[in-house]
């Protein structure tokens, strides 16, 4: 049996379908949440729901401990988890407590002894083929895996509440502030992003202008953050935010691998750069060869003149 650790993100359904394609019965576990009717439609007949007063607000080590107690009880052959920050952290705690290995960000999985895996390194820079030898295979599944067709629907999905005794409760959320409803890099349909070629903090004004007209937000490369031109929260890339907008407009960004892996899943990439050989210019869908401060004002002007007519 394969146990899938799900959250309420759309990626969880991909992980479920991916797990079902391995050809073993699949059960689901959530930290609260989970819709049994929907899971029944997707062929899952058992939902383990971890509930505990100790987990009323998120506690990383306690979540891992709870997960491990469930694993010990239901004894799956493997555990496939979504790769959100929280679930990855909980899986790492569970693996640590159990003294088991953990393979994170897997994209290909073959069960067996050992399990054969392909996992993503460096946010997508490289793929690693690996062997996992363990009593229970613990894996997180990278975002963007495409699930093969899952199992057929079942009549109903039984919800089993699981309330373990927890001891690892030292680290827990003590305070929480919510973000406003504003658009973020993660949600914006358009990102106008600037790098070294923008030249200065003030140089971003024209990117802001264009982003406003396209209903998007401004992003940046690591160079811009390191120069203090933009806050780190604007940074796209391996160590910033991984983005998937409809349009990623890269302005004066040469496109080192660390940046590329943060924007490569954008639907359309357009690059503006003086260097026709820049890696991002070659990898983009569309390119304009030229200086950001000549090209962008002209685009803004063109949009404005068309909207008048």
């Amino acid at each position, binding site marked *: 049996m394969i146990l899938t650790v799900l959250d309420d993100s759309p990626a969880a359904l991909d992980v479920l379908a991916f797990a079902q394609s391995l050809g073993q019965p699949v059960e689901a576990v959530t930290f609260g949440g989970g819709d049994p009717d929907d899971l029944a439609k997707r062929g899952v007949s058992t939902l383990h729901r971890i509930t505990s007063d100790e987990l009323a607000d998120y506690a990383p*080590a306690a979540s891992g401990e709870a997960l491990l107690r469930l694993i010990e009880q239901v004894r799956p052959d493997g555990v496939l988890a979504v790769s959100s*920050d*929280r679930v990855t952290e909980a899986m*790492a705690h569970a*693996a*640590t407590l159990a003294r*088991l*290995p*953990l*393979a*994170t*960000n897997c994209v290909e999985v073959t069960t067996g002894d050992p399990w054969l895996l392909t996992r993503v390194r*460096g*946010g997508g*820079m*490289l*793929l*690693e*083929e*690996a*062997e*996992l030898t363990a009593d229970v295979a613990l894996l997180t599944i990278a975002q963007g895996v495409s699930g093969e067709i899952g199992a057929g629907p079942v009549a109903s999905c039984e919800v089993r509440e699981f309330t373990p005794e927890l001891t690892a409760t030292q*680290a*827990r*959320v*003590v*305070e*929480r*502030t*919510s973000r406003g409803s504003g658009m973020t890099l993660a949600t914006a*349909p*358009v990102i106008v992003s600037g790098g070294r070629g923008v030249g200065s903090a003030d140089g971003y004004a024209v990117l802001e202008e264009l982003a406003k007209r396209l209903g*998007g937000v401004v992003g940046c490369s*690591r160079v811009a*953050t390191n120069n203090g031109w933009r806050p*780190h*929260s604007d*940074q796209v890339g391996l*160590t910033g935010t991984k983005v998937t907008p*409809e*349009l990623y407009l890269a302005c004066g960004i040469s*496109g*080192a*691998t*660390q940046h590329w892996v943060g924007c490569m899943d954008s639907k359309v990439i*357009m690059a503006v750069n003086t260097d026709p050989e820049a890696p991002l210019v*070659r990898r*983009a*869908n*569309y*390119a*304009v*060869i030229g200086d950001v401060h*000549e*090209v962008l*004002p*002209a*685009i803004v*002007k063109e*949009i404005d003149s068309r909207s008048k007519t």
Partner: protein
Amino acid sequence: MEVLVCVKRVPAPGAKVPLTDDQTEIDTRYLGHTIGPHEECAVEEAVRIVKAHGGSATVLAVGPAAADEQLRYAIAMGADRGVLVDVGDAELDPEATAAAISHAVGDTRYDLVLFGTESADASHYQVGIRVASALGVPIVGGIKGLELDTAVDDGAVSLRREVADGVEVYRLPLPAAAAVKEGLNLPRYPSMPGRLKAKKARIDVVPYTPEPGGLRKVRLRQPNDDREEAIVLGHGADAAPAVVDVLTQIGVIA
């Protein structure tokens, strides 16, 4: 305040990530090496903490003898001393890496142990958690804000991290550990006196023979990059009409 920072020597790839002939490592003959960005922020934070609260910052790397370079870089940034756990050239799995760090720490008591949330190359997301568990201290990852409170008995640390819908704050009693992310601070460039100090600094070398864990790397491969060459829409300001045509066509202009 005694602070330990764990860093990793990683290749510094540019636009391409070449592999060795046997496809088990990144070919670094023409690349440099660096400390991962998350860990560079961890070093910076440790240096700032020691400046504000006294004590010392120790930086530790598990890796080949050449990781000496990364330890000296951290000392040039302001760390006080370095520990190199020499395990040779082969890349260790996360269980073995954590065991190597725990071995080197031994009975030394640190008030705060800092890691990067994940290494820049292997991205396992777990070494910090495994070490913290072995040392018996609590840990939270993904940290972008850190504040020490020395007014309470043994001290405490507030840790802040960004989540999808906002920010969450943890408060841990010391000793504690945190796995941090870039954005925590803006790391300094080493000063000239810092570099001179680092050149002469003593690095403690701890030999260690690792026991492999259950995850074994077989080989690396490049992801498929079957993108077509970009369509060049034009040069300079003259390209604007063609650009706006495309923007309209893909539906980002109404």
